[in-house]
């Protein structure tokens, strides 16, 4: 499984990700607008809301850049710019159907390494502007990283264990009969939690919380802001999309072609993640850290153990 695509896919990939991110952001904006009255507005208003994220991007691109006193501008810029880069690089091993831009032999490790770049990105963006609230946002992401990363790595290792390969294409191939989500539900659940935490999204948006005026991104404006917040959306899309080859059978499915199944499953996961943010208040990190280390990590280890035993007896 897992064929290589031609070179043009390298160019198409970022555009595709940006497109999906804009659609997701539009969907989120429509939900946010409906929250006030408890129902969506008129069709016209809904459309206006859905294009709002695109308009925001335009607005920020014409905005004057601003800087704070004694800021470390290169650091903040690198931080903001690194986030979308990390997301796109992580997406390189993401199969659409059964094709990815590059099906590396250690694709899962590559994905994990690239999303770990987000740690550096958010921390730098928070540290750079020399402003307390953005610094607090940066700190919070490190604490969040400590909380989610260990269960997260165990969860994706479990999927690799089930397929006996680190190659994403082979993980998809191993799910031809049965999706991993069915017999590794704990790993799947933990993956979804950490997907949100990775993109500091939903109940894990504390690093960019409103209580710290936007946290790590608080002082960014103009193009920097587009890169940082856009990068966050890309990261969310990539993290959600990666759950499909890992746990939801990738392109496997009846009737429809593989790529259509990938798109459908990704859309379902994204819709779920967007919905979760609406339903649950922000989780404070010291509470989640406790949960992650005391409950989730042991659970993830037990899950990996079960999978290992099944694989050994196969």
């Amino acid at each position, binding site marked *: 499984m897992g064929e290589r695509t031609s070179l043009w896919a390298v160019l198409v990939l970022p555009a595709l990700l940006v497109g999906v991110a804009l659609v997701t952001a539009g969907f989120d904006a429509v939900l*946010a607008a409906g929250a*006030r*009255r408890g129902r969506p507005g008129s069709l016209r208003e809904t459309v206006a*809301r859905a294009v709002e994220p695109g*308009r925001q991007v335009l607005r920020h691109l014409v905005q004057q850049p601003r800087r704070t006193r004694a800021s470390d501008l290169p650091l903040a810029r690198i931080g903001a710019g690194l986030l979308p880069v990390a997301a796109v690089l992580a997406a390189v091993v993401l199969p659409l159907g059964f094709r990815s831009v590059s099906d590396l032999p250690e694709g899962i490790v590559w994905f994990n390494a690239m999303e770990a770049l987000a740690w550096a990105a958010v921390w730098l963006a928070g540290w750079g502007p020399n402003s307390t*609230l953005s610094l607090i946002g940066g700190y919070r992401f490190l604490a969040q990283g400590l909380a989610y990363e260990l269960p997260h790595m165990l969860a994706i290792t479990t999927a690799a264990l089930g397929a006996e390969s680190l190659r994403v294409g082979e993980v998809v191939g191993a799910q031809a009969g049965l999706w991993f989500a069915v017999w590794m539900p704990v790993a799947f659940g933990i993956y979804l939690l950490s997907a949100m935490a990775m993109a500091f999204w939903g109940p894990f948006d504390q690093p960019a919380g409103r*209580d710290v005026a*936007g946290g790590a991104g608080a002082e960014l404006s103009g193009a920097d802001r587009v890169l940082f917040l856009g990068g966050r959306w890309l990261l969310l899309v990539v993290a959600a999309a990666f759950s499909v080859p890992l746990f939801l059978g990738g392109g496997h499915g009846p009737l429809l072609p593989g790529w259509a199944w990938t798109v459908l499953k990704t859309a379902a996961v994204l819709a779920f993640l967007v919905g979760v943010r609406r339903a649950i208040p922000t989780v*404070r990190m010291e509470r989640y850290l406790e949960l992650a280390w005391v409950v989730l990590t042991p659970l993830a280890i037990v899950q990996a153990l079960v999978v290992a035993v099944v694989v050994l007896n196969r």
Partner: protein
Amino acid sequence: MRAAVSRPSVLLAVSPGATRQRLAVEAELARRGWPCVSGPAEADLLVVVGDLGSEGEESDGVVAGLWRGIPAPKARVWITDPERVVDALDGGLADLQRGEHESHHAHDEHEEHHEHHEHQQNGDTDPRADHSGHDMHSGHHGHAGHDMGGLVEGLPMADRADDRDGLRLDVLHVPLGPVLADWPAGLILRLALQGDVVQEVTVEPVAAPPSPRPPFWDEPWLRATAGEHVSRGDAARRLCAAHLDSLGRFFAVTGWDDMAARTRYVRDRALAGAAAAELTPLVRPLIRRAQRSRTLRWLTTGLGTLPAEQARQRGVTGPALVADGDAYSRMLVWLDAVGRSAAACDAAEALDAAEIVGPRGRLDTPVPPSRALLDSLPRLLEGTEFACARVIVASLDPDLDELTHVPAPGTVHSHG
């Protein structure tokens, strides 16, 4: 360009004593779908509500600092008259779309300040002066929250001190307020932070000038004691809206944006005079959802525990005393009061002038109830994480309007 700013992001700067205006502005912004943002970096339009821009130099610094922190293109608007919110916002949008940095005034009750604004505005609107000045000064004013107290040179250098675990760590001195999203207008806290742990807190005295107008949330009860006829329903309605306002902040600070938006919608309906028959079905699902949320409970229990005994000693008389516990229990008390007062807001009989208990507590004591809440703050905040500190402040929600209000002699304070 015009289309890109057709729904500007608004930064609200509210002065103490301007609750009525703030509510009018918030309702209008929500109606237009203009988002309220939490910092200057993401704002297009600065909306100054109340007298923040006209109280001498230091407060000028607040508005000027925020203004410098907003990236161009930008516009600003002053609102002191709740009746003229619509015009003022339209004017601000027009300025923004023309790309001129002008300001619109909705003054008429404060004519004397007008000239002053005009003056300041001219100083700032020269586009060249503004731009050349920007990169050099935008400095630490950049942030709504932290540099309000006249610190021009940015944050003071960090010093070191032992933290709660006995480690020697950097201490940052950070002023919080007076302009911060979901924050009591005018409140300034000076925090000493280590990492994001609050080590020390001082509450700064309110800087606003005394106002003869009664605080908006306490108005029905104060009017009743002054001998006016106030119906029980009006008081219940005000109480309901006041608690919904506090709850909106609480939900926003805990990161539950949808609930915050919904709560504020119901608050606006209550203030717009919706009947009990409309309000009750709006309020009930809110209360149920907040009460049933296990996550909210998990996240807010144990924060800022204020036992009744301690509360009484400090003179706290309102929901914080009834709650006899943490931030979560205070929220439950609000929810309960909202449910009861929403059902009662059609009652026509006169309010009993003998029992004057406003949303924050008894109004017949020598000091206003919010003073007692402010006095309790430092002890509750010290040793907590920054995020918890925000939740604790939101769960007490002191109303600084009460502190700027100076009653005419002999009208309100029976103990005097």
